[in-house]
């Protein structure tokens, strides 16, 4: 009898999950999601380089009223594979100005983007005044948000000042040049690196951890969105009431969450396959390294556990909200804070990659809504096992409580009418009729 009831329950769960899965497999959104990930990843990889290459080199003029002769040093600092700026002759009126203020007055028209006829169009200008030992730089630029050129000019001017002081102290200019050119050859080692010296293969687990945290973010973001829309559709068309007269809340909620998880998992699996094909083509040697990296510190197993718990927690919250709403607009009042909650740990992901043991990151990784993201990003650095296990237990307990509360709210919401508000949602969670 119990076995038959369990089998019937499992059958209903399977039917609901399958319907949910297949209904989204047939939509254009699924195929778009499948393609958009690799397209964005590819674009993200090549876009910064392309943008850097495509951007025109800014034109810089140096007006040296200090008599330091820093212009060649600045010119040298600007050189590179992609020069920070191209040095051009300043306009005559600025070059012959008697004071920084006069030079600035003379330069301003040329920095406006529409220079006077026959004059150079300038993107930036550096007016050097003061004495060789105490140079003052007035840096003018059309682009107020780009600090790179200003810092390069500052660095080069500082170097010129140091050289001027060394020359004044009687040092040989050749020696000064040699000293200035001296730079160490830095090699990166870490006890965490397999061979001592840090290579891409050693960084791979951290990068994969970061990637997995983003994948989880995507799965929750997309999956929960699908789930929310699905529940809203069923609520607005009164299908939920019929479903609840055929299936229990755990069967219905579980089936829907499983079905949408299947959609997200299919998209992620599609990405993984496309990613592996790309690696196989571009860097076939990396495939075994990726496999090994996934097993580092049990990364893939921990990730699976945190993924399941995180997904369950957020998906049940979204489903509960959906059960109270007949339109997405109604749901938006509560979606904002939840989206912020999901986005917050993502903002700390790069910090978690660079400083996985930073106190802030460690503390945040213990907070259950953030745990699946930040602990996944920390895993590759080999955090203490007690921390991983503790966070996992806390996460499991929280997820159990959240799912249980959301199941109650889901039932109350499915049969409710009227607009959603926080009071009704909490009332539903606490078992009070909505």
């Amino acid at each position, binding site marked *: 009898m119990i076995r038959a009831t369990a089998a*019937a329950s499992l059958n209903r769960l399977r*039917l*609901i999950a399958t319907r949910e899965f297949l*209904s989204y497999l047939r939509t254009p959104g699924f195929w778009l999601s499948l393609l958009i990930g690799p397209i964005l990843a590819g674009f993200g990889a090549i876009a910064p380089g392309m943008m850097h290459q495509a951007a025109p080199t800014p034109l810089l003029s140096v007006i040296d009223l200090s008599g330091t002769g820093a212009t060649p040093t600045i010119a040298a600092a600007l050189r590179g594979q992609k020069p920070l700026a191209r040095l051009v002759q300043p306009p005559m009126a600025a070059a012959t100005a008697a004071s920084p203020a006069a030079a600035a007055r003379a330069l301003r028209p040329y920095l406006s983007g529409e220079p006077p006829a026959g004059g150079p169009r300038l993107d930036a200008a550096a007016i050097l005044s003061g004495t060789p030992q105490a140079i003052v730089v007035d840096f003018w630029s059309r682009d107020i948000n780009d600090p790179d050129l200003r810092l390069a000019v500052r660095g080069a001017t500082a170097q010129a000042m140091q050289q001027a002081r060394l020359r004044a102290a009687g040092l040989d200019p050749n020696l000064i040049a040699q000293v200035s050119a001296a730079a160490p050859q830095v090699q990166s080692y870490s006890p965490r690196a397999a061979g001592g010296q840090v290579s891409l293969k050693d960084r791979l687990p951290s990068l994969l951890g970061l990637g997995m945290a983003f994948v989880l973010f995507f799965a929750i973001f997309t999956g929960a969105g699908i789930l929310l829309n699905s529940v809203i559709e069923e609520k607005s068309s*009164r*299908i939920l009431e019929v479903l609840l*007269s055929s299936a229990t809340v755990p069967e219905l909620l579980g089936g829907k969450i499983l079905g949408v998880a299947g959609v997200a998992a299919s998209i992620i699996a599609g990405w993984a396959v496309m990613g592996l094909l790309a690696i196989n083509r571009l860097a076939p040697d990396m495939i075994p390294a990726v496999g090994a990296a996934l097993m580092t510190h049990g990364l893939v197993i921990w990730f699976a556990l945190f993924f399941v718990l995180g997904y369950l927690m957020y998906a049940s919250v979204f489903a509960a909200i959906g059960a109270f709403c007949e339109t997405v607009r109604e749901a938006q009042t509560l979606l904002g804070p939840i989206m912020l909650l999901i986005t917050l740990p993502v903002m700390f992901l790069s910090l978690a990659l660079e400083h996985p043991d930073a106190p802030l990151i460690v503390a945040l990784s213990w907070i259950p809504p953030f745990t699946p993201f930040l602990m996944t990003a920390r895993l590759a650095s080999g955090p203490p096992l007690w921390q991983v296990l503790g966070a996992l237990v806390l996460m499991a307990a929280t997820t159990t409580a959240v799912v249980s509360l959301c199941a109650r709210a889901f039932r109350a919401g499915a*049969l409710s009418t009227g607009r959603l508000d926080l009071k009704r949602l909490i009332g539903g969670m606490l078992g009070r009729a909505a």
Partner: protein
Amino acid sequence: MAALELEGVGKRYGEFHAVRDLTFSVEPGSIFGFLGPNGAGKTSTLRMVLGLIPPTAGRICVLGSSQVRTRLDRIGFLPEERGLYRLMTPLDAVVYFAGLKGVGASVARKRGRAMLEAQGLGEAIGRPMKALSKGMAQKVQLICALVHEPELVILDEPFSGLDPVNQQGLEALIRDLAGQGSTVIFSTHVMANAERLCERIVLMAKGRKVFDGTVAEARAAAPTRLVLEGALDPSSLSALPGLASVERDGGHAGGSALYSLQLAPGASPQAVLKAALQRDLDISQFRMETPTLHDAFIVLTKAHDGHEAH
């Protein structure tokens, strides 16, 4: 064993009593009307019967079990407001809902196809629901509720939104279901359907049961009317014995008028007519109006309102 038994059932939402102390039972194989105006507590009661919401008082026994949710596979339910997945085809929808009730896919497909064709939906079988008319979609949903051949069928306002032809079709279907041994419970506030279909009814008002019995018993609660036409004087009509009230219904040419005479409880229309003729009243036409369920509904709910006011 009754198909459904409610004993002292109540449902309270905070301070609001949606249903109070409701007791009734439904015999197997019968057509049972659950009547009442909007907000009477019908939908709340049906939701409790289905185990969708728990009662705050009393006991519910469905198909011999107080564990209502264990009987869901043997119940068919059509909610008041209806809808189906817009992109699903009627046949897929029928197979899906049958599956949730434990019917295998191949059996459900065969049975669903036959039922859809019987309802004139053969050509729409493979079309998405969004392409179907409202009437067609309602038929599909009804088939979804019946495809697993339930012992107990609960229909919440099944006639709302249906045109007269489809209402007639649904009435025939309900009779067929009862003929095959299913118990049909339907809620409605349209009395004509209930009058034609039901053997027994429960009438609800403001969460309380105000009547429980046969349709004939309900009708008896409403007064009989005698309609007289002629050159009549209202005061001489009022003087007739056995009348509760006299109302003028309208006038006619030549001083003739139509009067509706409401008989006092227990009064005989024949006696009233005999008295009128003995007094030589100028009557050109007369007819007796038997009360309808609609009349009974109004009288019973008003009587309940009167009790509430006291």
